[in-house]
């Protein structure tokens, strides 16, 4: 009887010890050019937190996921944050390659230190041999998104003049979206411009008004995010241009959603950014724990939201997945 109890106790101790030994704690950093002030990144953060919570609650392991991003777009700040993430020697870094030149050195240093790196949202555009040797990329294809947006408009009708409103000049991803859009338009014989509108909505509306006054034949507009969509929708509504101007947007917020429901916007391009927070955390865990890797980059976009699927998406937005 006594020996049986001892045996059981010993077994329990061994079991407990083995659990302690097997249970690992991982720390992953997501370093992004997008501040916590951008609604888009709020969804990425939710994806990141959900993935970490799912692993922590569903396995014996613990995942800490930490999000770093400058409140206002600043490359210097981004590099500083990346350096502090590297200094913490985490088990993985997820980074947006907003500026390949500036991020090349710190990310290569991280990889040399043995920290696994996954690129999200914006990849390194250079060819395979030259690019930062991160594991793989999870995100949309910005250039393809711009192209598909233009194709979707051209499928409805060929506009007289098209314009892209860019709210963050010099942002590589936004510039690629604009380029893809403008190239397809140019191929279709449509003159296409790029207009810098800034982030203040009042000033943006007046810049847009200035453009329309100089180019009154404009009848196709592509915005690159909610910050650009807000003044554009306001302008079109106030000027009674709804229905005359085809509007394609990027990403989803309440303003964009209502614009689609009211027929002001034809569609919005999304990259399902929830997955850009969720998948890298899952993959970093799988890679650290079991050495798994996907065969390719994982494209989460371009996806489209328009009148046909807005109902479902609306429900998911309320829950923070879009």
């Amino acid at each position, binding site marked *: 009887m006594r020996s049986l109890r001892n045996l059981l106790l010993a077994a329990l101790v061994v079991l407990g010890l083995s659990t302690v030994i097997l249970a690992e704690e991982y720390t992953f950093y997501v370093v992004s050019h997008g501040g916590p002030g*951008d609604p888009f990144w709020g969804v990425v953060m939710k994806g990141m937190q959900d993935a970490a919570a799912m692993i922590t609650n569903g396995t014996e392991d613990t995942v800490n996921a930490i999000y770093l991003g400058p409140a206002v777009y600043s490359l210097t700040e981004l590099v500083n944050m990346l350096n502090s993430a590297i200094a913490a020697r985490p088990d993985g870094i997820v980074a947006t390659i907003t500026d390949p030149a500036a991020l090349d050195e710190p990310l290569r240093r991280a990889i040399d230190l043995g920290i696994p790196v996954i690129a999200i949202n914006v990849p390194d555009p250079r060819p395979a041999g030259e690019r930062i040797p991160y594991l793989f990329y999870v995100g949309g294809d910005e250039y393809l998104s711009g192209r598909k947006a233009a194709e979707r408009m051209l499928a409805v009708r060929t506009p007289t003049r098209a314009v892209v409103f860019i709210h963050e000049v010099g942002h590589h991803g936004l510039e690629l979206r604009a380029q893809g859009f403008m190239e397809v338009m140019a191929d279709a014989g449509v003159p296409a411009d790029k207009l810098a509108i800034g982030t203040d909505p*009042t000033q943006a509306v*007046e810049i847009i008004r*200035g453009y329309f006054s100089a180019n009154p034949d404009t009848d196709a507009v592509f915005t690159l995010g909610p910050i650009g969509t807000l*003044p554009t929708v306001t302008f079109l509504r106030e000027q009674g241009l709804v229905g005359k101007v085809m509007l394609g947007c990027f990403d989803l917020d309440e303003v964009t959603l209502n614009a689609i429901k009211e027929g002001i916007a034809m569609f919005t391009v999304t990259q399902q950014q929830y997955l850009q927070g969720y998948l890298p955390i899952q993959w970093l865990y799988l890679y650290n724990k079991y050495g798994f890797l996907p065969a390719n980059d994982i494209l989460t976009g371009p996806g489209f939201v328009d009148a046909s699927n807005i109902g479902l998406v609306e429900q998911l937005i309320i829950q923070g997945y879009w």
Partner: protein
Amino acid sequence: MGQVTNRTGRGTAPPRFSLEAFLTWLRRHPEFGAFAGTVVVFIGFSITATRFLTPDSFAGILTVAAELGIVAAGITFLMISGEFDLSVGSVLGVAAMIFALTVKAGWPVLGSWAVALLASAGIGLINGLIVTKTGIPSFITTLGAMMFWRGILLAVTKGFPIQFFPRTLPPMFFALNGRFVGQFRTSALWFLGIILLINLILVRTRYGNAVYATGGNRDAARVLGVATNKVKLINFVISATLAGLAGCIQFARFLSIDPTRGVGLELEAIAAAVIGGTLLTGGAGNLVGTLFGVLLVGMVRSGLVQSGAPAYWYQAFVGLIVVVAVIVNTRLRRWALG
């Protein structure tokens, strides 16, 4: 537009042209540089942009100038009394957030608005108390306040915009920033009213004199019995309240506030005040100069686009104007002083 009274309340236009009279006039009018600049840029865009001389275009310029100008009016007042406020951009965001959250929660619009303005005034009061009680330069105090309130904004909104879609637009929203004729908006009326009111206080009241004295020579002001700390405290409150008002005005039109709203605004407002002849060191400046300063900024914004120049040039252009304006203002002042 040059026919304004200066702070001594005397008439300004020289009765007959003589160099001496002109110099005296010029000395009393630091806004002359901004006025001249506005005229030059105006003529320039009239030539390069075909649709620049239209009511719509003027309305556009005035709309940009209005929101910036309401903020710049408060900043000018404060700068004349010798202090800075870098927190106005963050205060604009915080006020708009409070307005948005409370309206969304079903508060009466007027009450929400009052609470947003009171909160802004409170932030101004804190800024003022820190500066006057501890003697920490306002540049540092309000730099800290700028970061702190921006941080609060981010934390409360968790990064998401606050959007409000009422079935019918409350009349108060129209009063704040509605379209009343053509493209002209009520924000411009608020702006002109505020400029007029503050300029009247500045040039026609004892308090105005106290503001100039506080910024010009603090010790002399104190000897003369001016309560310089009180003046500064009041001006901090005015500056923050006006920034809050601008935030409410912006929300009334767009019905959406994202937590980065107002970033960089403080520098544009200071630039407008400086273009208008307000001294960074205090003691000199007036609202007429700031009026031209913000009109100039608004004009450059839409004029460049209408002329077909890439809008990328905007910042470079404003940068040039600031430096040129300050050089011209300084030279004019020195020249006029003989």
